[in-house]
């Protein structure tokens, strides 16, 4: 069995974002980078399956981006992936979901994976498209937004998360692709020995120029902070004072103390 996990490196969402001089993305300087949160669940699910199957499956991790994305890949390797393929593209930030999926498909086509796991979306672009597009390009089934996964003899049963707490039970035969929702499992923290071991694992770089270039289907015209709704009061200062201020406001503006 061959398993692929697709991951993306994204900024910490607690960051204060500035607009890039091009006006079409956030400035990538002065940001703390990490593995896209949804992808951590994908990595964990793949590692759990590998462990359940006695370590037999070959587990690959792939990521597209500049050199720094190798940091996120090393985390995936330290969590338990076997090998990494870094598709090196310093301009990946301007690529749309269709282009990203095309690169991944070109790589995955040759490898014939039985199982592909991705996050359901990235935290920065959040299109929720790449996983499904990749599966469609490879002509394998895709099930999105899974919160439960079990594998038995080449068949997988998953639960899709729907709105309002409802779930859909879906059964699929491999090969197939699944996009992972938060809460699917509990992603492990890499241990120090595993971090050391990961340094010796193979991490191949594939220059983007070696892959077919797809034409973009859409362009980003501008990126901007959302307009403040206004009206909301912002309180800052010393905690003791703030507590009193806030209670005063609540007594005046709400009926919860009546």
């Amino acid at each position, binding site marked *: 069995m061959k398993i692929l996990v697709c991951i993306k490196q994204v900024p910490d*969402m*607690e960051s204060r*974002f500035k607009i890039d001089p091009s006006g079409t993305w*956030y400035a990538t300087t002065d940001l703390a980078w990490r593995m896209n949160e949804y992808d951590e669940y994908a990595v964990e699910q793949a590692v759990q399956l590998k462990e359940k199957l006695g370590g037999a499956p070959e587990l690959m991790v792939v990521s597209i981006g500049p050199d720094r994305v190798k940091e996120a890949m090393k985390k995936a390797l330290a969590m338990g992936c076997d090998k990494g393929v870094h598709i090196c593209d310093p301009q990946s930030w301007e690529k*749309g*979901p*269709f282009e990203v999926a095309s690169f991944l498909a070109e790589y995955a086509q040759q490898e014939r994976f039985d199982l592909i796991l991705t996050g359901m979306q990235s*935290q*920065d672009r*959040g*299109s*929720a*498209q790449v996983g*499904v597009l990749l599966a469609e390009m490879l002509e394998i089934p*895709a*099930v*999105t*937004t899974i919160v439960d996964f079990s594998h038995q003899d080449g068949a997988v*049963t998953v639960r*899709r*998360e*729907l709105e*309002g*707490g*409802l*779930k*859909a*039970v*879906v*059964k699929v035969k491999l090969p197939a692709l699944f996009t992972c929702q*938060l*809460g699917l499992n*509990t992603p492990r923290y890499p241990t120090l020995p595993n971090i050391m071991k990961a340094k010796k694992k193979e991490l191949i770089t594939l220059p983007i120029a070696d892959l077919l270039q797809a034409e*973009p*289907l*859409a*362009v*980003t*015209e*501008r*990126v901007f*902070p*959302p307009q*403040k709704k206004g009206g*909301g*009061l*912002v*309180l*800052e200062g010393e*905690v*003791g004072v*703030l*507590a*009193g201020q*806030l*209670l005063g406001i609540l007594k005046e*503006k*709400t*009926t*919860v103390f009546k």
Partner: protein
Amino acid sequence: MKALIVGEYRQGRLQAGTYETLAFAQQLGAEAVMFAVGSDAELPRFAGRLYLADAAACGEYNPAVHKALLLEVIARENPDLIVLCHSSYGWDLAPRLALALKAAQVSEVVDVEEGAFVVPACNAKLRRRIRPQSARTVVTLQAGAFGLTGEPAGSPELERIAGSAAGDVEFAGYEAAEKGEVDLTRAEVIVSAGRGVGKPENVDVIAGLARAFGGELGASRPVVDAGWVDHSRQVGTTGQTVAPKLYVACGISGAIQHLAGMKKSGFVVAINKDKDAPIGEVADVLVVADVLQLAPALTAALQG
């Protein structure tokens, strides 16, 4: 301009988001034609053509079949835009259509500006304006971003279409949420804990504040996923939708899925260290502070 809007049925019921796709077409001044895999038992109030496939025959979740049916309708109607909700149904189906049509897909549209589509980025801290370059475009709409002016009315002109049940996945039924420990929809005050509380032990601090208000403890998704708080207390799209008199969001950044579950609250207080957190957008009062310091101070003040 012609828009094909994709209606949504679940457990035989038409989903309210369907009217948001209609509102979007209305706002663009587009002629609207509707498609749905659903049932005659509940037809949308819509004065236009509705291509209806029977969900009992095709399955409510059967993306390969829904895609094939939609492609048939698209060939007949030749729409410029295909509009879906950005829901578990819509985001699953939309990319399949986009690829088959070689069309751009724009996900989670919140606004239209100069004929281009505006979507959120980076947990709603940024907005991005996207202009498709393809002949046709597939869009998914953020829940609640578009609303009809006036009540929907009319009866659709029905055009029945038939599809097989054969797909590449087997839908084996729905599972309802487990009945949990609390019904938050009855609470007058909800004090919710988010990731910003840091660790499970600190949830008690927030629960203490909730008790001091005579209210209930709520939580955002990460805190529930981490197992710190029971799922029955989760507020948001996949938890409960609440509208208490007072909602206090403690260390919650304000992901759209959370906001959708609480923005109808009477009065919203957000306590957050990050002044730019999106929760500030819906808060009547944003207190910029460490919740672990402010919550005990508030609790003491309420008890004093």
